[in-house]
Structure formats: C-alpha cells, structure tokens
C-alpha cells in the first residue's frame, strides 16, 4: 500500500506538449506510471511519447477514465488548469507549477475540496510510491521500496532526505512534496493522517522549513493522533531575520515562524529533529527499534540534538526573531 497514489493511478498530464510536461510525462511512463493522456488546448489528436493528447480535460477523462492529473503549465494558466481538472472529475490534482499567485489559491483550494478532489501543491515535486507510481518530478533513481513515509514542504531538500534514507537501507512507502507556497491544497496533517492509516507505512519523516506555523500544528496533531515513529528536519536555522510584512504581518503571525520555534515544538512532543538530512535515518532506526513514537532514551536524544542544532544559533535568531524572510522561502519562477 501507499498513500494517494498506487498501481490504480491513471494519470493525465496537463501541459504535456511543453518542455517540462513532455520530459516528465516520459519519465513517469518509464517508471511504470499509467500515464493515459495528455491535455494541451489546440494540440488534440496528436501524441507525446506514445501518449494521446486531447484538447480538453473533459474529453481526456471521458475517453481514458483518468483519475489523477499533474500540471506543468505556466503560472498564468495553472489556476485555470486546477479548476478544469476538478470539474472534469479528477480525484487527485498535482500542481508542479511554481509561481502561482497565492490569492488565486485562496479560492481554488476550497473549490477543489467542494468537488471532492484533492489538490497537492502548487509549487511541489509531487509524489512517488516506489515500484507503484510516480506523479510529478521526483527523481526515481533515489527511491527504494520500503515502509517509511516522507512528507516535505521542499523540493531538492526532499531528494536529499530520501537519498539519505535509501543509502541507509530505509525504503519508502510514499514520498510526497506538499509545496512551499503559502496556500496549498494538502498540508502536513492530511499526509500524517494518511500515513497513520496506511498499513504499509511504519514510520514517518517530516521535513519542514521556516515560515508559518504548519510544523507547530503538525506537532500537536502527532502528539494526539499519530502512534507511528516520526522524525523531522527543519531547514532555515540560519535564515536571515525577516523583513516584516508591515504591521499586519507582525500582528497576525503570532508564532515567529523561526526554525528554532518549530524545533522546540517538535521536540516538546518527543519528535527527534535531525541536525542534517544525513542524521534522519540514524534517528529513525533508533526509534523504529523501539516501535514507539517517543524515543526510548528521550533525554539523551534530546540533549544531543539541542546541543548540536540550536546551541550556536539560538541566541542570534531569537533576538532578531520576526516573521520569516520571505525571499528565502520563495523559490524562483521558472521561465
């Protein structure tokens, strides 16, 4: 088993004739994903890598019974692509496109939900369930079939973490990048819930970064509802202090959004936080031996982690702590 995607996943690629779309459609197909269709308006009745191309999502779904879509269209058209997929009856919409306006997503996310569908992203690498299916851009060479679930807000950092697990002999059930934008369709909690219920997942790796308070909220959810072992990594301990978003930013943020606060919240509920992605499998193996969420030698783990990770930077960060530096969290737009 796995979460969100499996052998039954039938994928339609939105924007299949573009540079990224065609390349990754082929990559997915090579990996064994059931890519049944592509959509580019005006390019119907053609083929890309042997995949039939349709003009509309409606037609693609009617003809191929696709249940999942992946979006590679440019940011100006991505929001519309999401609506089109939801209206065509797609159950899982993965939006890889980065640079989608946040305010567009404020409306699109509830709309997709109202259609009974799930949106992953935007600005995300997508998902891969090793030896079953890949939807998105995650490099398939770094994964290995196994029972660790990986959730991340990042792209390449996710690869780094997966690669560290694979090298240490820890395979994955599903790896999912939920995207680094402010407004996203699927959050940590949706994934934690799914991994908790997935019999093929024995342990979870959660990768966060500065900004917002999703990690803090996830920590609280894990304390209450997750019995499987969880380890974490948070990027941005040395991120420069935020240029505040006017007065409103300071007022609304409540929590500071710093790595330090997130690490504190996670460690408080017994989730070990790695100092480096390489340390993730080490911590996870320790936890999986005991089979429990909380570390058996809690004090020791905590002590070493705190010393290693927050000791040097904590003072500086906290004295300058404010809303996160937006520049550092925003990934540049693709041309």
């Amino acid at each position: 088993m796995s979460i969100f995607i499996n052998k039954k996943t039938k994928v339609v690629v939105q924007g299949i004739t573009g540079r990224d779309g065609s390349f990754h459609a082929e990559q997915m197909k090579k990996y064994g994903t059931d890519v049944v269709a592509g959509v580019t308006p005006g390019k119907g009745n053609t083929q890309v890598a042997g995949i039939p191309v349709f003009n509309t999502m409606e037609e693609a779904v009617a003809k191929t019974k696709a249940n999942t879509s992946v979006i590679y269209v440019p940011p100006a058209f991505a929001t519309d692509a999401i609506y089109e997929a939801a209206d065509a009856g797609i159950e899982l919409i993965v939006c890889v496109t980065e640079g989608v306006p946040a305010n567009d997503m404020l409306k699109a996310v509830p709309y997709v939900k109202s259609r009974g569908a799930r949106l992953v992203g935007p600005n995300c690498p997508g998902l891969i369930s090793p030896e079953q299916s890949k939807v998105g851009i995650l490099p398939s060479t770094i994964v290995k079939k196994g029972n660790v679930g990986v959730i991340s807000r990042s792209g390449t950092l996710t690869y780094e973490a997966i690669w560290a697990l694979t090298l240490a002999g820890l395979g994955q059930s599903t790896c999912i990048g939920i995207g680094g934008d402010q407004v996203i369709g699927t959050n940590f909690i949706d994934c934690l819930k799914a991994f908790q219920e997935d019999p093929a997942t024995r342990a979870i790796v959660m990768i966060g970064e500065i900004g917002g308070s999703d990690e803090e909220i996830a920590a609280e959810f894990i304390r209450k509802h997750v019995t499987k072992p969880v380890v974490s990594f948070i990027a941005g301990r040395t991120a420069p202090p935020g240029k505040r978003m006017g007065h409103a930013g300071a007022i609304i943020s409540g929590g500071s959004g710093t790595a330090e606060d997130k690490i504190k919240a996670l460690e408080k509920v017994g989730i070990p936080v790695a100092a480096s992605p390489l340390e993730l499998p080490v911590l996870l193996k320790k936890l999986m031996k005991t089979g429990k969420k909380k570390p058996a030698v809690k004090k020791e783990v905590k002590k070493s982690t705190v010393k290693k990770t927050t000791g040097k930077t904590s003072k500086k960060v906290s004295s300058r702590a404010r809303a996160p530096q937006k520049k550092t969290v925003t990934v540049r737009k693709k041309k």
Partner: protein
Amino acid sequence: MKVHEYQAKQIFEKAGIPVPPGNIATTPTEAFEIAEKLNKPVMIKAQVHVGGRGKAGGVKYAENAEAAKVLAQKILGMDIKGLTVKKVLVTEAVEIISEAYIGIILDRTTQKPVIMVSSAGGVDIEEVAAKTPEKIHKLYVDPVVGLREYQARNLAYKLFRETSQVRKTSDIIMKLYDIFWQVDASLVEINPLISTPGGEVLAIDDKLNVDDNGLFRHKNIAAMRDLDAEDQAEIKAREADLSYVKLEGNIGCIVNGAGLAMTTMDLVKHYGGEPANFLDIGGSSNPQKVQTAMQIILADPNVRAILINIFGGITRCDDVANGIVAAFKESKPTVPVVVRLTGTNESEAQRILSAYRLPTADTLDAAVKKAISLAGIE
C-alpha cells in the same frame, strides 16, 4: 514586492478611498510648488521602505510653502536606516480627532484573508497588538463568498459610533478588500485612518505589498519597484532569475532549491563556518545562471571558499558543470571551490569538470566540512 506610500496612495485614491490631497516631490522647489498650490499647512513625508521613519525625523509638519521647501531640503538626501531619501510626499496636513487602524493580510494558517481593525491606530499599533490584543478585532473572510456589507459595517462599528462615519468607514473597508484581490496584494493597510473635526474619515498612511507571483498580471505595479532600495547584487541576481540574499559570513553557497539552500547554510554554521549568502539557482538551470551566480559570489570580498551543492532533479548536473567551466574560463577564482553534484546526469558532469580537479565530496555534510577547512578558518 513593496510599493512606496505615495504609490499605494495613488492606487487607494483611484479605488475611491478618501485621502488628503498632495503630490510627490524630488526637489525642495517641487515641494514648495505643491504646498503653494495646496495653500494649506502640509506634511512632508520621506518615501523609504523602512518602518519608524517618523521617529527617525523623516516626517515633518510645515506651516506654509516656504517652510515646506526648507524641510524638504532637510529630508531629501537624509539617510534613514541605511536608505537615502530620494522622494518626499507632500500632503495637506489635516486636524486629527482620532486614529484607527485597518489591515488585510493573507493568513496562511486559516488560508483566508483576515481583516484587522483597531480604534487604537497610529505608530504604536504593534505595541497595542502585543500588550492589548483585545483591542485588535479580526475577521476571517470566506474567500469564495467574499466580504459581505454587514461584515464591513460590523468592523466599522468597532471604530466609530457616529452613523455617517460608520458608513464611510464601512465603504473604505469594502474598497480595501477589493484592492486586496484586484492587485494580488499580500498586505493592504491604512494606518492611521483618521477622523477630522468636520466628521470626515481619511486614509493618512497607506501601505501595499504585492505578491511577487501576481506581478505578471500587474505590469503597472511591477514598474513601481524601487531599485535604489535594493542591494545591487540582489538586483543582478533577480534579473538572472536567481534568488540571492547576502549575509555576513565567508562561505559562499550556490544551491538548487530554497529548502536545500537553507539546509546548506545551516550545515555551514553547524560545522563551524558562516554562510556568506543564500543563493538558489532555481529549477531548470542553464549554464548562464550558474556563471552569473559565480560572478555574484566572487564579487563579495568576504568570501573565502565557495560551496556548490546541486541535487539534480529537473536541474541537470551537466548544465551546472558547464556553467562552472564557463565561470572558470571567465576569471579564475582565487578562492577554493568545492563542488558536490548528485542526481540527473551526474557522471557527465564529473567528466566535464575532471580537468579542473576541483575538490569534491559525496555527501552534503562532507562537502560543507571540506569547504570550511579549505577556507582556512579555524
């Protein structure tokens, strides 16, 4: 992206929000002319992208046009927190009975726009929020339904009791909410919203931040970017589609992906070094971007070693390698360059770089340690 107060004022005014009359001046003479035309006492306000400009002496009251000229002379060219004042906003000075606050921001936790109002507006609004949060009233708006008139009215009643003022304020809140959507704002703010002895309600200071991702459909706002307010290297980086933030350390970092770039910086610090910068070359990178990244980092005199960390997915390692070669051909770096390339077309990249015998490492941690040791920092 932040726009200046005078630019936000233009946008707010166009949307029908009442603002005091005024104009922008770049010379004392222009300030004189604007004040003379208004024929009333005026406020001279420095246009810089920093908070607390009033406390820094960047906002002054002038009784008449002569005084406006003298004060504009003082403020123009003034340094406020490292930024030089090049423009001043000259507006009619109005008598103030009360000061309120209105702000709208995207709240990522609830994934809704939140409207915040307070009758305790003015320069100390942050202190108000910290010490007496009950004085800040919040409304989370359903983005699909939009803001209903009764909701705006209820918020207005938190600020005023008098019916005509409530009506005017309610109207301002509705219009501000519209602006939030129309320009892809991440923040719109009026602080203070004042009432006058005549019962008028006016927006005295306007703030607008626009989502960078929305700028493609707001060319007029994109053109408002103030390049003077930004670091030269950061401008160069943005033009090359790189994301760069200069820091104070001495290990230059070139990475693909924001999360991995932050992680690389974190590990530099963790192993005893100091990162010189954040630099994300982004997704599908061409060699030219890598070359520009090298130029930017080599121009930083603090840099003692460069660490290139690429985990290829969309990014192809051979593209990056070609960029490194081009940068080396252009100017041989005088500092050690540690290269760690993993993922897509990794072996091709190693072949391209083999002639240069650059120090390398298998893992990120090992690469970071090597860069620190080669930098010769104890």
